[in-house]
């Protein structure tokens, strides 16, 4: 057991993922036997919570559907309450292979980053996505590269490693729905360091994507509006990286 497993919690937001979650949890348990796992059940109508409990995972059972953002914020709050040094996030559909987790830690150590994003576009792994989706993600990546003033290749990736500084920020402030792109802009604005690690994704193992054709339109509008308005917002000094880490701050 590597040393990081003791101070890390693996957060898995899941909405109706009973089919894919079982094999995923088994895979995680086989690879990292000591790693605590928390499944945040976002008010699923299937047996997501039961599947998770049967495999010994912690379950945060949300009484109403909060969306990925609200679910993840509950997970971040749990990680802060448990005093975790790192929180990992992978999606419940199994598209993020748990075997790639060490790559995120390697990048974290190398770059000294507060948040590491697993990017499927950084390496030369097989990218499986529909054409429209790649175009939209490409446009979003350019927008975020501008907003963050650093290269972002996979802004919608939910494969993330968050350290305790960023955890405290996320537990206080996290976008409500479709949080991934906006959270990156918020992080860099607050002075946190973001890095990307090349990671190979898989096909989702079962279930259905939460982003269909109609919601994709809303996704694009919502994220664009949020990114634009974020630029006009003042930096929240209480939650800036400096304030939480004590770097050069009175």
């Amino acid at each position: 057991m590597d040393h990081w497993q003791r101070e890390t919690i693996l957060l898995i937001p899941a909405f109706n993922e009973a089919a894919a979650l079982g094999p995923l949890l088994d895979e995680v348990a086989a690879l990292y036997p000591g790693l605590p796992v928390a499944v945040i059940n976002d008010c699923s109508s299937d047996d997501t919570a039961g599947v998770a409990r049967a495999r010994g995972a912690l379950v945060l059972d949300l009484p109403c559907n909060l969306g990925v953002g609200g679910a993840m914020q509950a997970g971040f709050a749990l990680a802060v309450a448990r005093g975790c040094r790192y929180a990992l996030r992978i999606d419940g559909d199994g598209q993020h292979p748990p075997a790639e987790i060490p790559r995120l830690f390697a990048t974290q150590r190398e770059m000294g980053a507060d948040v590491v994003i697993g990017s499927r576009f950084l390496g030369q792994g097989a990218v499986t996505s529909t054409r429209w989706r790649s175009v939209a993600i490409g446009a979003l990546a350019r927008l975020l590269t501008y907003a963050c003033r650093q290269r972002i290749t996979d802004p919608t990736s939910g494969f993330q490693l968050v350290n305790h500084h960023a955890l405290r920020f996320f537990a206080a402030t996290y976008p409500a729905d479709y949080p991934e792109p906006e959270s990156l802009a918020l992080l860099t604005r607050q002075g946190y360091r973001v890095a990307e690690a090349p990671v190979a994704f898989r096909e989702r193992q079962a279930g259905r994507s939460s982003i269909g054709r109609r919601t994709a339109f809303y996704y694009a509008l919502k994220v664009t509006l949020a990114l634009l308005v974020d630029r006009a917002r003042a930096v929240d000094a209480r939650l800036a990286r400096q304030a939480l880490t004590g770097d050069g701050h009175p």
Partner: protein
Amino acid sequence: MTHLLTILGGVLVLVSGLAFVALRKRRRGLAIAGLLLGIVLVLFLSGITPGLTADRVTMELKLRVVTGLLSFLMLIATLEAVRRTQMHERYALLWVATGLVILVFALYPTTILAWLQRVTGMQYVTAIVIVVFAFLLLVSFHFSIMLSRARDDVARTARRVALLEQRLEALERTRPEDPKPPASPP
């Protein structure tokens, strides 16, 4: 001509006042909004200025200015509310759409409204009122649905909290020797 000058003067006063307030309070967002307002109003007015005489400053033109200002107020208020985190983007989108539609009607009344007038036989004023009314109806309908959903969520959460408290009390009664756990952060 005097009418136009009055309108222009009013706009100038408005924009400069806004810019002044924004600069004094060092509010960058408001300053940018005021600047945008000024630019678009100038564009809007310059588009209708050529060959304009006093007799052509009609009721319709005044109405366009009023609706244009209305839409701008709506857009600025919405964006400012989002910026202050008083409003979620989800709800802002409908307001932004409403503001933009009203703006389009103020900027290009002939193209869209001519069609609407031909189909329904309504005058410009009536058409504007109907369109604005329809959008406000849409917004309030949307809110009724969202409010009902939020009400359901609150009820479900309250039930869950009540059940959890009951379970916790039962647990504490069976094992009173256990030390009390530290209070969890909010």
